[in-house]
């Protein structure tokens, strides 16, 4: 039986109640939402500021000075831009950068998509083959560039050797990099070779997310292989295609190592990309300001390429076969 006399109730311990302590300033601070937001963002903003904004800002600042290596420049306004505007070597680099990016991107995506479609089929040693095709992309660029440098060498090219000494189809070595247009095409070929795996593997990932039921339904409806590709595969991989293409365009447009290792922008500046020209003028040539100007002049092209990829390729119409709204 329970004892409920008033005496026992009074003797029972009173209910526990937390002691409300006076809030310290640090507690108040940690409760303050704006402060927490600032504190949490600070590391990220700091890193971005130090490693991204500052170099970019410095690069843009240098573009408006006549700095050389070893000498602080003075503000010259648009003088560097004016000079480059009348510099045929600069315009040649603009032309070749756009041409190189355009042709190499088309090549990489055509061949990369084809490869991805092939790899998407069931075949023996599938994983092994998928791993192998990544090799051109994994190899450090400068190594593959040196390999191509040998392949394209005017005297010691393996291809020339096969055609001249082994097959006897030619009497002279093939001119890969000693005149302007062959050199341009040779570099594009090297870039495509290097870029295919990235595109293929990325698109393969996209292809594998497409539900097989879509294809089954299409086949029941009597769709041809082309129709299945056009109305199922393409719209379904379009989002990933847009992203991959954006990256690919940026990487190709800002390419440096292949061109610098194989031709150094030659013969007679015909294969300079904006990146190699910026380096040539800025570092070996010592004209930091002018080099920075060339680098800065790449920004509009890159912004345009990014916007094009995001807006033009990622339209819903493409993905869903409907209007844009």
């Amino acid at each position, binding site marked *: 039986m329970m004892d409920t006399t008033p005496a026992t109730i009074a003797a029972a311990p009173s209910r526990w109640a937390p002691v409300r302590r006076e809030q310290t300033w640090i507690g108040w601070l940690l409760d303050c939402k704006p402060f927490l937001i600032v504190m949490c963002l600070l590391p990220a903003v700091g890193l971005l500021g130090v490693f991204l904004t500052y170099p970019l800002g410095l690069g843009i600042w240098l573009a408006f000075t006549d700095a050389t290596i070893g000498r602080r420049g003075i503000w010259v306004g648009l003088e560097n831009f004016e000079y480059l505007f009348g510099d045929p070597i600069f315009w040649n680099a603009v032309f070749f950068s756009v041409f190189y990016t355009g042709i190499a991107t088309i090549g990489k995506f055509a061949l990369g998509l084809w490869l991805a479609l092939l790899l998407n089929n069931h075949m023996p040693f599938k994983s092994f083959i998928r791993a192998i095709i990544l090799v051109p992309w994994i190899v450090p660029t400068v190594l593959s560039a040196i390999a191509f440098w040998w392949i394209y060498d005017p005297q010691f090219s393996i291809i020339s050797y096969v055609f001249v000494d082994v097959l006897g189809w030619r009497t002279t070595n093939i001119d890969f990099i000693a005149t*302007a247009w062959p050199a341009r095409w040779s570099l594009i070929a090297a870039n495509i070779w290097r870029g295919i795996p990235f595109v293929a593997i990325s698109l393969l990932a996209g292809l594998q997310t497409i539900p097989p039921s879509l294809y089954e339904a299409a086949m029941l409806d009597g769709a041809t292989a082309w129709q299945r590709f056009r109305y199922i595969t393409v719209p379904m991989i379009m989002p990933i295609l847009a992203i991959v293409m954006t990256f690919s365009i940026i990487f190709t447009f800002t390419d440096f190592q292949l061109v610098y290792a194989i031709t150094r922008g*030659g*013969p007679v500046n015909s294969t300079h990309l904006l990146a190699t020209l910026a380096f040539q003028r800025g570092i070996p040539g010592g004209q930091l300001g002018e080099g920075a100007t060339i680098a800065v002049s790449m920004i509009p092209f890159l912004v345009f390429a990014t916007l094009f990829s995001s807006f033009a390729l990622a339209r819903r119409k493409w993905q869903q076969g409907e209007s844009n709204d």
Partner: protein
Amino acid sequence: MTQVLTRRGTLAMAGATLAAGPAVAQAPASAPAPAPAAGAAPAAAPAAAPSVSPIAVAPAARPAWPIEQGASLRMLRPVRFVQPDEEVWRSNCAKFTQQTGVPVRVDFVGWEDITQQTAVTANTGAGPDIIVGFDGAPHLFADKIHDLSDIANYLGAKYGGWRPLAGAYGMRQGRFVGLPMGASGGPCVWRTSALREAGFESPPDDHAGFLRLCQELRRINKPAGFALGNAVGDGNAFANWLIWSHGGALVDEQGVVSINSPETINALNYLRELYPTFIPGTLAWTDISNNRAYTAQELWLTQNGVSLYFSLKNDPATAAIAEDTQMTPMPKGLADSPPNAGLTLNAMIFRHSRFPNAARALLAFLMEAEQYDPWLQANIGYWSQPLNAYAESAVWQSDPKITIFRDTMNSTFWNGYRGPITEGSVAATADYVMVQMCAAVASGQATPQAAAREAERRAQRFFRAR
């Protein structure tokens, strides 16, 4: 005049006495560090057998450089050509430490980086006390480095005076801003057998004869070839030779751009005739290309430093090519002397150094016969002396074929010739202004007139007043 027998030479004599044999000095066990290095040198290059150098020395008072308390030095220089270069350099510095108690740290950096590192050091006022840079580097940073006239005057008086190229690169407005330590030349390298077959004993010294030689070589399918690609060393050397030997120059004595001249047009017209005789592909050549083609016996006459000869000679598979190889100056053409500006080591002491006296003492020490001659010998001809007395160094007797490099620094041509050395002349060389002018004409992309105008436009940008 007295004669100094260098220590390495003395060792050689001792070795010769002991072994009653020639060549390699077997250093006694008690010998300090450099001796094994000297002994090791011939393994890499048999030509480096040390022997006695009768270096003539005139009496000269060495200025007193009281070494600062607690001094220590850092030095930066380009990487070696050959292993013994670095070994002897380091052991010379170690000897300095031994004698003075001043620790010396030497860092070797890649050739393509030394100019940038010099610029950054000068700009930031921090870094090595001494940089041994290339060519005209001290001229660019004259306000950041110490005047070295005291060392230069002392050494010049003692060792028979400075050679012209040393003056061109070392002196600015009558004062020494840099201390030239050696230069590497680029003569004409050719195959005796090929020239004989073409009906020549050696390359003619005039343009017409040289063209005829190249045409004959082409006819017998043993072509000549010179780099016309973006090759910093070989490309500039050939383009400079072409223009200078026709009396042209990038700038005049006042530093005003003068490349668009009748002399240049003549030179480029000459190139239009010369280029078809070249082996195909020279427009894409980098510095290494002619070495490879020559070694593969696809190229029979070119312009290169001594490295080509030694790489052939030291490989048993190609020793026969070395045997058949000769080196002579590039044709003079209309010039008074062979137009070739040797790549020059040029030392400077920065004002930010806390121990300028110790640095001075070190540089002077390295240039003294006891240290310099062993180093010169270790380099088997890759570097040639800036001081006249060292022309008697035994290195120049070690192999008759390299004797031509003895006079590399007697050249009256420098990069940026005829003008003062400025940022502009250095940048114009680095940006291949002359090379690309020549390449544009050779490839048929531009007429000589258009190419000269384009070179003028580019050069004017580099030489603009700032």
